[in-house]
Each structure stands twice: as structure tokens, then as C-alpha cells.
């Protein structure tokens, strides 16, 4: 991190036109591999997917002459798609609100009680680096019938819940696992953001008679708002794609109650082999994600400006 603290001063000498042209040339050359790779691995597949979505609804993996927008018409009139999108939004709002509220509270407290403790930071990183499928399998085990650790002890105190076979509790479990894995990560990032808030600002507010809670709410949180939006964006990018948990724990069930957007899309394409229709759903998923990222980005710009 020390490299980040040094600031590069602006170049003092004026470059000659010839040197500037040479420097522009090597910069272009250095950027070329990146541009080629990005174009080949983002633009090309997306175009192929668009072409696929204009083909027959089922059974054809190669791109032929476009047949029209029928897959999109089916998509917009299908209640299943809106159900999957709605579930994804419920999941996103639930997980992100809990993670941000819990994470910011814990970060504000840790910043006061154990400022800059490296052990705390390493511990906070652990759950976030674990493979989501490993976390999913652990929770499947903890909730296994009557013998899993959580379900066993809950049954002992009288809470007898078939967690994964009831629609509402199954979705709650999917949210809870995301909260479990990523709240420490939110704490870690919020702690980093809090180190940028100078002590003097808090002291000035405290001298004006504000209590610790008021200082946190009225002074500290507004100062780190752009960072909080950045954290929300990072979580959004991952959470919209929640998949391993659902695959390992519920397979979208019971019924369709945990068939979130990505799983629904996976089922349509790889499960039912509806290649054209599945591609059309994926186009919707990509568009939805990019629009949300743009909105979050605009919100962050506004927060930075004020």
C-alpha cells in the first residue's frame, strides 16, 4: 500500500514533438493486446449470442439466417421470466441492505475500537476468498435434515423448520448465505474507506456537541458515501449472478421459488436446450446488469461531486 501514498508530480519538462509522437506510438502498441482480447472475448460472444437469440427457439446451436424477434416476444409475455427477475431483485435488495447496514455498523465500531488492526483485516478477508461452491456445500451440510449442526440444535430448542423445502425459508437461506460470505468483505472495504476520514473532522463535530452516533451519521457516513456506492456496485456485480448456492442447495426449488434470474437462464439454455430462447434471456440479463451498473456509476459521480 505504501506505493499508493506517493504522488507522482506532473512532468516538468516539455517534451519535443518528436518524442511525444514516439511516446504515443508505444502507448498504442502497449494497449493493442488488451483491446484485441477485450473485443474478442466480450463483443464477439455478445454478437454471437444476439444472432443465436434471433434463431429458432429450440435445438439449434449454430447461427443461421435471422428469423425475427419471436424469442423476445415470448420472453416479454412469459410470466416465468418476470418471476425470475422479481426474485433476483428481492434477493439483491435483501442481501445488499443487510450486508451494508451490518457491515457499515461493524466497520464504524471497529474503526473506533481496534483502528488499523492487521489481524482483524486478514480475518475479515477469509469468507470472501472462499469458493462460493465450498460455502454452499458447508451450509447444505449444516442444514441437512435433522442431523446438520444448525437444524439439529434449532430442533433441540423447538424450531423445527424444513429450511430448504419451504419457499420463503429457502429464499431466506440463499440470502443468509450471501450475507454470511460477504458482510466481512463489506466491513473490510468500509474500514479502508474510513481511514480517509481525518480525526479533526470528528473532533470538530464532537466539540459542537454531537454524540458519537450523530457524528457517524451526519459527518462520517456522508464523507464516505462515494466509497459506499462503490462497495454496493461490487456486491451488485457478484450478487446478480448468484448461482452455486442455488445449484447446490435448492436447484431452483421448491417449485420455482428460488429460480433466480441466472439459474432460470441456465435451466432454459442448458437444461431444456432452448438455445434461441435462452440466448434471448441472457441478452436481457446482460442489458439489465449494464443498465444497473451505469445507474450506480451516475449515482457515484453525483455523490463525489457534492
Amino acid at each position, binding site marked *: *500500500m505504501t*506505493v*499508493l501514498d*506517493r504522488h507522482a508530480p506532473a512532468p516538468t519538462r516539455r517534451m519535443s514533438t518528436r518524442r511525444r509522437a514516439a511516446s504515443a506510438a*508505444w*502507448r498504442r502498441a*502497449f494497449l493493442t*493486446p*488488451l483491446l484485441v*482480447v*477485450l473485443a474478442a*472475448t*466480450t463483443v464477439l*460472444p455478445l454478437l*454471437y449470442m444476439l444472432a*443465436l437469440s434471433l434463431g429458432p427457439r429450440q435445438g439449434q446451436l*449454430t447461427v443461421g439466417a435471422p428469423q425475427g424477434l419471436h424469442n423476445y416476444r415470448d420472453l416479454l409475455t412469459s410470466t416465468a421470466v418476470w418471476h425470475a427477475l422479481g426474485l433476483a431483485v428481492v434477493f439483491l435488495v435483501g442481501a445488499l441492505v443487510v450486508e451494508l447496514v*451490518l457491515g457499515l455498523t*461493524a466497520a464504524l*465500531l471497529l*474503526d*473506533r*475500537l481496534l483502528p488499523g488492526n*492487521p489481524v482483524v*483485516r*486478514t480475518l475479515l*478477508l477469509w*469468507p470472501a*476468498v*472462499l*469458493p462460493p*461452491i*465450498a460455502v454452499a*456445500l458447508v451450509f447444505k*451440510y449444516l442444514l441437512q435434515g435433522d442431523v*446438520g*449442526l444448525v437444524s*439439529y440444535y434449532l430442533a433441540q430448542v423447538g424450531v423445527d423448520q424444513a429450511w430448504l423445502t419451504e419457499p420463503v425459508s429457502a429464499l431466506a437461506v440463499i440470502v443468509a448465505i450471501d450475507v454470511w460470505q460477504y*458482510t466481512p468483505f463489506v466491513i473490510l*472495504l468500509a474500514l*479502508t474507506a474510513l481511514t480517509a476520514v481525518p*480525526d479533526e473532522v*470528528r473532533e470538530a463535530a*464532537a466539540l459542537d456537541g454531537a454524540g*458519537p452516533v450523530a*457524528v457517524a451519521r451526519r459527518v462520517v457516513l456522508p464523507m464516505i458515501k462515494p466509497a459506499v456506492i462503490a*462497495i454496493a456496485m461490487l456486491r451488485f*456485480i457478484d450478487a446478480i*449472478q448468484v*448461482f*452455486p448456492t442455488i*445449484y*447446490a442447495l435448492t436447484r431452483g426449488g421448491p417449485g420455482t421459488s428460488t429460480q433466480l434470474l*441466472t439459474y432460470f437462464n441456465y435451466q432454459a*439454455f442448458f437444461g431444456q436446450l432452448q438455445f434461441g430462447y*435462452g440466448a434471448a434471456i*441472457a441478452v436481457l*440479463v446482460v442489458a439489465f*446488469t*449494464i443498465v444497473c451498473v451505469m445507474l450506480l456509476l451516475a449515482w457515484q459521480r453525483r455523490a463525489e461531486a457534492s
Partner: protein
Amino acid sequence: MSRRRTDGLGPVAKVLAGIFLLVLLAFFTLPTLYAVLTAFQPPLVASRPSPQWLFTPTLDSFRSLFVDYSFIGPLLNSIQSSVGSSLLAVVIAAPAAYALSRGRSSNAGAMGFWLLCARALPAIGVSIPAYAIFNQLGLNDTIVALLLVYLPYNVALATILLRVFLDGVPREIDEAAAIDGAGPVRTLVRVILPVARPGVASVGIMTFLFAWNNFLFPLVLTGSKAATVPLALQQFLGSYTLQWNEVMAGVVLLSLPLILLAVTLGRYLVGGVSAGSVK
């Protein structure tokens, strides 16, 4: 300094805050501890119908993974695809990040947005065309297929992060190298990257992590030959002879490299995570 920072909270508030943090700690560590415990249980203990806390630990479940379930293949696939993806990403991203860091390009904003979009691209939106294209090229169920689909994510991540780290390397170093007659390539490889070693390390770890942890891509693009550990673990669940202690042993094996990385190189990783988001 630290004394002053804690001022403002009364003793009662401090105790309550401490309890809140301890409860959080327990909530976040107990599940993993119990999973690790189960991995070391003998099969007979693990199959009892209630949680078991006391037993003589054995390595039976780990041995069984390799002997009965040929775990070595998926393990090698995981290592090849993750290390390969990490190396590819750094090699492609380093020159680009250097060019972006040293240039005052007018379209840097557009480049940044493209990189963010590549990073945010839903994996399902890549896996569908990738499956269709690889199917025609005969690339399905190969490590190359995995390396290709990891590219946009890891290259974008590495470029975004490395750029932040390279911005922190003073330009006087470039100028000194130029006076010594070094061209841009030599300056980058011999001078700049060694100075930014912590940044390169954290980028290497984070790109490795992305590939190592991935589940959806191996699930849809690989089968018997190129399956990685996450996929193999999931497949074990389907076999009815498998015990939970063996699944948890697999979970421990899959997570072990990450825990080791977090312990030994944790500070680089924390630096990378923060540079990527809230700098």
C-alpha cells in the same frame, strides 16, 4: 493516537460494541470451523445422527478422496487453469495498465467504462455463446476453453488494479530509465514492475482466485476431462456412497490454498481489494 480515536464512546457503549463484534465473529467463524472438524472425523463418527464434537482425528476422508474418487485429475485441472489464467492476465494487462497510467488519453473514460463492463459481464451471458462456439471448434471440455472465458474478467480486473498501482510509481523513475537508454518495454519489465511488486502480487492473487473459485464456467464448459475441483465436489454429491466427512475434506482441500494465500500474502490481497474499489 489510537487512544484519541476511541474517545467519544463511553465504557458501557464500549462493552456493548465489543459484545456485538464478538457475536459477529462467532457467526462468521463457527460454520467453517465445524466444516474443518468434520473433515477430520472417522467415517463412523461422521455418520452418527447428531453433531459430534469429540473424536480421534484421522486423515481417512482425505485419503479416500484421492484413492476412491480420483481427486488428482480435477486438482491438476484447477491448478493449470488458475495459474494459467493469472499469468495470461498479468502479461496482457501490464503493458496496457502502464500505457493508461502514463498517458493523458482523452478517451480514458470510455476505456475505464469498457473495462468495468467486462468485469461486470454476467457469466451466463459469456457461457452461452462460448458453449455454442466451442462446440463447433471442438474446444468443449478443455483447459483452453476455461482460459478463454476467464480472459475478459481477469484481464479487466488486472488492468484496473495494476493501473492504480502503477499510478503510484513516480514518473522520475521512467525518466531516469529513459536517460539510461532503456526503451518502454525494458523500462516496464526491468524497472517499473519490480518497483510495483506488491501491486503485481495482489493482482496475481486476485486473478488466480477468480479462476480457482469459478463454478458456472467449469459446469457448462467441461465434463470428465477438464473438470475442476469445484465441479468435481458437486459431482461427488450425486454419488450415494459419499459421506459428509469426505465432502468437507474436499471443501478443505479446495479452500486450503486460499487460506494459505490469505495468511501469507494477506496484506497484498487487502491492498488489491481496496485499490480495486474504494481507493
